[in-house]
């Protein structure tokens, strides 16, 4: 479905490249998570898929077609994009925000409105929110609107860049699991970026770990936690695992 082929990207003339000949493929219907520390190149990698970043070398294919084959705006209208900054348009209502891509695609106003209301239900927001402006929403509600906006034009591919990073743990877990269900129900192909190994392990079908512009691990979640995983990946897993064990011990001691 998505194939990244030897991508190279350098910001500025000096220093290490953000992407150092990275290759990665994502199968149709797969929930692919890319984990990495900040500066590992994971966001750059994601943005090459909808051409928010143009690589210096290498190629990106979606459905077997190079992404440079059509103008970037047209490509982006077919790919849902959610990121940590959310970037709701402050001068648009919730409804106008959600309906923006269908409007750019020239849908009928009636169809747009119907789709928007449907999406409000889907992301579990009251329909009365439709006429509100983004500044009247909480962080979690905004991220739900952002998700609805990305899904509005029925894309097959979704790109999520640390989508839940700014939310509290409970909201984050809930929204993550809710999205995972949508991924199943709508047969989406998802690429999600996170720095949180735990989140990746829980949500992913397949996980890749990036470090210094290169993919250092690519496999199933259970492989990432197996003793055969590379040291760096094991180190990433260690912290959440120890935390989970600490919590499990506490729970046992409380006799619950």
């Amino acid at each position, binding site marked *: 479905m998505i194939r990244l082929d030897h991508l190279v990207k350098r910001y500025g003339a000096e220093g290490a490249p953000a992407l150092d000949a990275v290759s990665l493929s994502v199968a149709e219907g797969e929930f692919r998570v890319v984990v990495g520390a900040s500066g590992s190149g994971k966001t750059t990698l994601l943005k090459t898929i909808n051409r928010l970043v143009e690589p210096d070398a290498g190629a990106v294919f979606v459905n077997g077609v190079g992404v440079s084959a059509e103008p970037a705006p047209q490509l982006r209208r077919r790919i849902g994009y959610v990121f940590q*900054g959310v970037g709701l348009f402050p001068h648009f209502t919730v409804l106008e925000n959600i309906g923006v891509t269908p409007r750019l695609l020239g849908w009928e106003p009636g169809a747009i409105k119907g789709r928007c209301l449907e999406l409000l239900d889907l992301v579990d927001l009251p329909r009365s929110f439709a006429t509100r402006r983004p500044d009247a929403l909480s962080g979690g509600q905004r991220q739900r609107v952002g998700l609805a906006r990305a899904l509005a034009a029925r894309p097959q591919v979704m790109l999520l860049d640390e989508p839940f990073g700014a939310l509290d743990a409970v909201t984050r877990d809930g929204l993550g699991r809710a999205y995972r269900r949508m991924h199943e129900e709508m047969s989406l192909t998802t690429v999600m970026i996170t720095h949180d190994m735990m989140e990746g392990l829980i949500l992913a079908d397949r996980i890749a770990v990036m470090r210094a512009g290169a993919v250092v691990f690519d496999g199933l979640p259970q492989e990432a936690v197996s003793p055969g995983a590379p040291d760096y990946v094991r180190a990433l897993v260690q912290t959440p695992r120890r935390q989970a064990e600490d919590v499990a011990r506490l729970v046992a001691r409380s006799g619950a």
Partner: protein
Amino acid sequence: MSSELAAALGFLPIRLGWHVLLSASALMVGVAFSLPLVLLSRRNARIRWSVLAAAGLVQTIPSLALLALFFPVLLALSAVVRTLTGHGFSALGFVPALCALSLYAMLPILRNGVAGLASVDPAVIEAAKGVGMTDVQRLVQVEGPLAAPVVLAGVRTAAVWVIGAATLATPVGQTCLGDYIFTGLQTENWLLVLLGCAASAALAFVADQLLGLVEGGLAQRERLRIIAGLGGLALGTALACVPLAFTANAGARAYVVGAKNFSEQYILADVMADRLRRAGARVTEKSDLGSAIAFRALAAGEIDAYVDYSGTLWTTVLGRTDTPPRATLTARLKDELGKRYGVTLLGSLGFENAYALAMPKARADEMGIETIADLAPHAKDLVLGTDLEFLSRVEWRRLETAYGLRFKAERQYQPTFMYRAALAGDVDVITAFSSDGRILADDLRVLRDPKGAIPPYDAVILLAPGRASDPRLVAALAPLVGRVGVAAMRAANLSVDRDRDKRSVAEAAVELEKALGLL
């Protein structure tokens, strides 16, 4: 006082109308030029830098100078256009004022435009790209609307600046609220100054409030407020311009009588205009022209007639440094002006308005000073007060060398304040004008010039190229030649300049004509 106020208020509709038309046009031109530049600089830091630097540079030019600078530029441009198309345009009045004020309006709009676009949240811009907007869609649907309130705040600042600076359009010959200020300042009529200031401040306030309504509407996305603000601006501008429609009636070309920026000039221009009107002609007056602008405007046919002084023309226009006897100077001047510029020297009015060094009589007696030669040894302890141009004129250099004058200090004043400074003792010696009524009123002694360093300054009537053959113009003005004595002129000047029992310029003109037996 009240009749004077009523007379002054009579000019208000026209002056306000022009002021509004000028400011509104300048603002619109400023916006029309600034916004494309803002868009150009949106993604190019180098363009952005150059545009802001250029606009900032313009802003550092004093507004009065900026207005004055456009005159020679437009004069040259007009000449080029005339040779190309056969039709020139007026380099005086509306066009130079519009150019200068439009340039002036650009900086705040550019600066806020650039700042407005830069203030849009990068996350929102990325989102706009991410949802599939093209560059144009992003600008129109996202960046534009989000930057609009900031841009409008810039337009607001520009509007207030332009309305204030438009009062400076008077010296380039554009009727505006500045006419009150300049004339009032010159004739020490503070009521007029106040009236001009108050009217322009009120205008700026109203425009600012209406634009504030638009700005608030854009920020809050309330269409009603935007419409109300824009509607108010459009309606106000249209209403203010109504009086202009009544004056701009078609018909025979009007005569334009010019005047420089002091009382004597206003009075003489009024006398000339009155005589032309009585002969059935339509006349407009362009007052408060800068000394250099007046002659160039005449030479270019922008004005038809005005009074200048032989010594001034001799030194500043012809660039001569010698001082021939009076009759020779006038004859050669007439000859040269005709040859070089096609300007006709109709004749001398009969009085002289020379630069003269003067000092309070009591002080002069005390020090035993009658002539400039007497003054020279004392000069090192004395302060000289001059008008705004004297120190840069040839006459001053000649006076300096002829008598070896070295003052302790030299200070420049607007002429009204120069006389005040002499009275108050801030300065000891001033460069008075020999026909000035204040010489009598302020009890000043004019110091004689035994070496003849200062050329004669006979008041002469000048006619624009081609106008000497206009029988109505010549018939109206020729009777003034040789008729106006210095005593009559001084009395007329004093009646306008004095503090008590002040006459308006129009009244003084009528009284002068009566005194001369011309009415």
